[in-house]
């Protein structure tokens, strides 16, 4: 029993540097492009997992697979609440929501909008694709360019926040173990109390 306890504690400490398990989706909006990646908390990306993007009416607007780094990218044609679902195909499913209010005011018409190839790793490409007409840029266009630029700058921060939010903390793991031991102690106390009284 002591050995088991020792192994449990050992596993507890090794867990801090090991991979953890839950699948999550990071998704962000730059202009009209939803991009992001699936990731397992602690490390690892779902390679070749199915990606489905649904609009508000639960209609599939994009079907694809994640690239080697778990990434996906999709240029939207309208404004809606988009739900991104990443499914590894064996029980790991994660969702992320991009709400309609994150889209800038009337989206630039883009009749040829097509899903961009999966794994378009260069976030700057969206900014380059934005319409710019030199000095003739309208207010709406400037606003859109600014929004894309801000989204581009903010993305690393959002990624960092998502990662911080999803990490396993040693304190939590130790707290969990102590909680279980404590519950065991309560159980022992309760049973000894019960049997003591009845004797």
């Amino acid at each position, binding site marked *: *029993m002591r050995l088991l306890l020792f192994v449990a504690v050992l596993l507890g400490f090794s867990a801090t540097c090991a*991979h953890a398990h839950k699948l999550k989706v990071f998704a962000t909006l730059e202009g009209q492009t939803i991009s992001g990646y699936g990731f397992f908390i602690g490390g690892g990306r779902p390679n070749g997992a199915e990606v489905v993007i649904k609009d508000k009416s639960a209609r599939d607007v994009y079907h694809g697979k994640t690239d080697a780094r778990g990434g996906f990218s999709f240029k939207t044609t309208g404004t809606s609440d988009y739900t991104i679902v990443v499914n*590894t195909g064996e029980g790991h499913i994660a969702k992320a929501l991009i709400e309609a209010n994150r889209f800038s005011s009337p989206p630039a018409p883009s009749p040829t909008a097509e899903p961009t190839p999966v794994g378009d790793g260069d976030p700057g490409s969206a900014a380059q694709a934005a319409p710019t007409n030199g000095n003739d840029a309208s207010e709406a266009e400037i606003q859109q360019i600014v929004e894309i630029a801000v989204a581009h700058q903010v993305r690393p921060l959002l990624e960092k926040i998502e990662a911080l939010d999803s990490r396993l903390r040693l304190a939590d793991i130790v707290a969990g173990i102590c909680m*279980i031991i404590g519950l065991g102690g309560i159980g022992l106390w309760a049973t000894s109390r019960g049997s003591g009284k009845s004797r």
Partner: protein
Amino acid sequence: MAHIPDGLLSIPVLLGGAVATAGGLAWAMRSLNEETIPRTAVLSAMFFVSSLIAVPVGPSSVHLMLSGLMGLLLGPMIVPAVFIALILQAAMFGFGGLTTLGINTLNIAGPGLLMGAMFAPFVQRAAPSRAGLIGGFCAALAVAGTGVGVAASLALSSSDYTPSAKIIIATYIPLMAVEAVIAGLAITFLKRVKPEALTLRHSSITPLRVSQTTFDKPSTPDANSIPVDQNAL
């Protein structure tokens, strides 16, 4: 994998899992005594920690469950062991979810309990190395049972989430092998060093058959069961 999050499963699947787990917990309470509690707590802590550590395999990642080993060592107490650990994982790390606690417990503890009950008599009788082999086989089957359970839970809930058999096989087979090795080594070791740890089911954990007998003849005093005094508290 085995930690199905909230919001994916249909109500009947969630309810079915919750009812089965509640029944399992109530049944396990009959085996609660001074000897089973510390053992359950230690194995629950091991499960809590080991199922946090996952290794990427292909498009997915897998983690240990130790359900076969827990089934052999704990018998019915595997249900509270897994349940408590899953509550903590859901509350602290958001792994799985609170609404899916029942079905997740069923998917992990159920196969462990069944396989443990099936193989425990053979493990108890066998020599250490042979017991290890049987224990490994038991652990591998328990993992396979969990794979089938998770796939069935998702497939029954929505055809969108029906897992692909090919990916399940690709991810679960390595896990079955690793679990078999770990359980095999642990059982061999326990059999050599502390063989009574594996025979506990016959001495103080009330196995299914004995509990049935106790149930049929309530007047028979059972030395292994803890008398519960309703007025004690």
